[in-house]
């Protein structure tokens, strides 16, 4: 999304004035909220209403979180090597050797 009006006029677009919100939706009770996408809205309440219209039309959710995208701290892609490579080929870190009983529910 460009921040400046391509026409070059000093009239800023509505888009550049509304902050970006990251939307998380919990599909059913017992599951985690999952990131579903983002949208623009002037405030948190409107972000939730917009999320309801944009992301829950097909009965997807029981709970919506909207997080101001500016509040998200993210790792940098350039640090990928040092952050993740050491975990490779350490198969013993993956708990794939256990059978999970059905009654345990989603893990």
């Amino acid at each position, binding site marked *: 999304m460009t921040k400046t009006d391509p026409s070059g006029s000093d009239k800023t677009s*509505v888009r550049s004035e509304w902050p970006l919100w990251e939307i998380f939706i919990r599909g059913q009770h017992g599951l985690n909220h999952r990131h579903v996408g983002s*949208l623009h809205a*002037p405030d948190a309440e409107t972000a939730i*209403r917009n999320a309801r*219209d944009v992301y829950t039309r097909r009965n997807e959710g029981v709970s919506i979180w909207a997080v101001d995208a500016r509040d998200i701290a993210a790792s940098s892609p350039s640090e990928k090597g040092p952050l993740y490579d050491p975990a490779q080929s350490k198969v013993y870190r993956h708990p794939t050797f256990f059978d999970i009983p059905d009654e345990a529910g989603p893990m």
Partner: protein
Amino acid sequence: MNAALFEFLCRMGDNTLVLGHRVSEWCGHAPVLEEDIALANTALDLIGQTQMWLGLAGEVEGQGRSADDLAYLRDAWDFRCLLLVEQPNGDFGQTIMRQFLFDALHELQLNELRASKDDRIAGIAEKSAKEVAYHLERSSETVIALGDGTEESHRRMQAALDVLWPYAGEAFLDDESDRALAETGIAVLPSTLGAAYGARVREVMAEATLQLPEGTFAHSGGRTGARHSEHLGHMLAQMQWLQRAYPGAVW
């Protein structure tokens, strides 16, 4: 009694049909993507409600007409929608103001109709009321945000209110068929909703820093079919031309 019931069901179904079509005209044109989707959702809710109201109307009439027949094959003078809902979209502010003025009425109506002695009507009202509660939340919050927003948004919302307010009063004028249905507990007498409606609208307008126009003049003739505005015919030409040109065409 059947004639009064048919009249009532057409009034409910034509309001949702005509407003649903009007709102759908925004699809792909709204100022931002989020509003575009929200407006399309509202339009779809209203068209869904239309299928229930006009479906029942055809059943009550007993002449084999379906909801589609009533929607696509009647002429403007047979429509029973309020003048408010047939008014053109104007700018986004006018669309949202029209939506709020209708939603506030619609929510009051449906809440009363949930207690209708006719189970079929109570059922449709019950199902619609949840959708309409959300429509009302969205439209009132948007009216407040834009009314109490920038100088330009305030000016546009005030202009929209000035244009549309004289169309709001028609909903509360009773006639013979209203009285017949109210006496038997099937529907609510429109005039009894007027006070609650006025209070709700004044509350939202105060928060939106908008002034209700003075005077009590109300345009009428929509819900009786006596005198629709010129806009309805143009809208129906757009909405109905395919079924008129290719009768019975299906997907």
